């Protein structure tokens, strides 16, 4: 009897936190989405009214498009860059610990602090980036105020700040690949590229899946960088789902609609995660 209960006793602290801070908020959000919900609580039961409002709002579809655009601009590059850097950092070169720390550093810098620095860097008049372009005779660009540039810049900033975390995951995956396999490949005359594509990538497949899933989830939840760098502009071109949720809730006090946006976000993330597990996770290597 004691042995059967023991695992559950060990799980209890996690379960308490899970129920309090994850399960309850999700259920509560779902419940709120069926009401006209203001700051002080529910005003009126609307059924699916908030969802109807949402799906008939042109702005919501633009925002959804922006979210997917951000995902496209962020997920593939962050996986490739992180994997590439992880492979470089996996070797035994002098000062490797310093390099690892440098790449992880952006992860621990507060979003507000890095956003201020990036805003200065990209300022159209006094920013360093435009000064460098000026040397080559290129006219200054309004990186954060131009519809074409703003989303790209935000995605680059998020790639910079989040790749450190992915590098750590890839490094852990690389540690698990037996050195004997690499030695065998070397004996067989495999060059570095063949080794990378034929051995490293296939054996990293579960890690790539994990990083992909986490990156997709992260891309749909991006908020801080957009809040600080562009405020959703210009012309709403960087307003993504999480920022739209914030606007609906904290600017317009439509917490019912904001909750509906949250439910839709959760649904999209769940569907995309299932798809990724289905197509990336099923093949054995």
């Amino acid at each position, binding site marked *: 009897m004691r042995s059967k209960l023991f695992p559950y006793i060990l799980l209890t602290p996690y379960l308490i936190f899970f129920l309090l801070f994850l399960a309850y908020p999700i259920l509560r959000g779902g419940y709120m989405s069926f009401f006209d919900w203001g700051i002080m609580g529910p005003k009126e039961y609307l059924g699916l009214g908030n969802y109807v409002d949402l799906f008939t709002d042109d702005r919501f579809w633009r925002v959804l498009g922006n979210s997917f655009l951000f995902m496209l601009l962020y997920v593939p590059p962050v996986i490739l860059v992180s994997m590439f850097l992880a492979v470089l950092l996996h070797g035994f070169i002098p000062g490797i610990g310093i390099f690892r720390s440098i790449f992880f550093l952006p992860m621990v810098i507060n979003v507000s602090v890095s956003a201020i620095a990036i805003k200065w860097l990209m300022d*159209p008049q006094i920013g360093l980036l435009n000064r460098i372009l000026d040397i080559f005779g290129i006219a200054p660009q309004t990186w954060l105020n131009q519809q074409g540039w703003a989303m790209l810049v935000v995605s680059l900033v998020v790639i910079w700040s989040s790749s450190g975390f992915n590098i750590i995951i890839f490094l852990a995956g690389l540690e698990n690949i037996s050195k004997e396999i690499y030695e065998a490949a070397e004996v067989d005359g495999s060059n570095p590229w063949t080794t990378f594509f034929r051995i490293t990538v296939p054996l990293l497949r579960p890690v790539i899946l994990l990083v992909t899933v986490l990156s997709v989830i992260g891309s749909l939840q991006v908020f801080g960088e957009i809040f600080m760098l562009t405020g959703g502009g210009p012309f709403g071109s960087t307003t993504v789902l999480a920022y739209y949720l914030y606007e609906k809730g904290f600017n317009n006090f439509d917490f019912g609609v904001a909750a509906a946006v949250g439910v839709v976000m959760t649904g999209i993330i769940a569907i995309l995660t299932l798809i990724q597990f289905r197509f990336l996770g099923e093949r054995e290597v």
Partner: protein
Amino acid sequence: MFKSKKFLFIVLAMVLVMPFAVSAQDNVTISFWSPFTGPDGQTIEAMVNDFNETAGPEMGVTVDMLIVPWDEYYTKLTVSMASNQAPNLAIAHSHRVPAFADEGTLIEFTRDNLETLNINEEDFISALWNAGEYEGARYAIPIDAFPRNIFYNKAVFEQAGLDPEVAPTTGEELMVALDAIQAIGDEEIVPIVISTSGSWAGREFYSLYMQYEPNLLNPEMTGVSDNFEEAATQALEVTTGLIDGGYALAAPGDWAALFAQNKVGIVFAQITHVLSLSQIEGLEFGTGVFPQFGPEPASFTLGHNFVMPIGSGQDPDHISASLQFISWFGDNAMAWAEGGKVPATFSVINDPAFTDLTAQSISTSQMDYLVLPPIIPEQSEIDTIIQENLEALYGGQSSIEDTVNRIADEINSLLG
């Protein structure tokens, strides 16, 4: 003997503890959330400290101020209201008051409250006073305004052969000044900075628009005013004309840094910047009213207000303590005006010492034609519509006609 000693000990202990008990009972501590940082933050902190050291002990009131920076202020205030943990006293922008009042989150300032505090409508700039009222009830007491105005760089004016002591006040005078600055021939000098993104772009649009048409919305508040398209077009022709004429940049970036380096002639800004500009060593600048382009003078302004959020910490004692602090603040508002604000009350405006605050006095001279946003809960959404469409216009992705039509359609759809 033992009993009498014990009795004596108890009496002595009570005598010793009594003053503290009375003090604890009489003294009320109110929580006050302030979003001001930088020079504003230093000013309000000094005022609160002054209150806590001088008038506060006499009134039995202590103000416990928490500074929550602007970026997250309204988010935290809203969450505190939702969780019934709101502070006793808070600051709110005039255009935010209707939405908070509509949500039932604010305590009304009753007629009795105002009489107790000796607060009279006649003592306030009327536009600011009116903005604190929603559906017949008063939810906010104004403390200041920060209208649009211009700052001009005296070094650049001198270089352009302009009188550095005279600011342009009309559209024609502004253009003369801009032509003179452009004629300097220095490509690094920007004749004028106007805001082309963010909330400031909207505020400049409102200032110009309201010179052609005083009302943004129709009297029923169900859509834009009848004259919206014409007035908005005229306002946007002014700003785009400045960009197309090479006087202004479509994306100005950090104007304050350029202004400090004597690389900007004139800037459309607001009086809140006067203190930070004054602190830049070697910068000589002047202040002017927002120039009149249209047939009527108008300068768009927002203002800060005291509000009392509903929350578990509110009871008659705390409300009374908040009211006493508000009253003290009004009596000592000169210090607040010194921080770069147009004071809300005539008692400060008419004080001879106020005329020494040159920039504030010039900005205050616009008080007869200050225009605030419409008093409706949806104003934040209207601001977003206008801001986003202006960004599209200045970003070259939309014509004036399309911008105006889209703003009108989106506002009509929101309110209709």
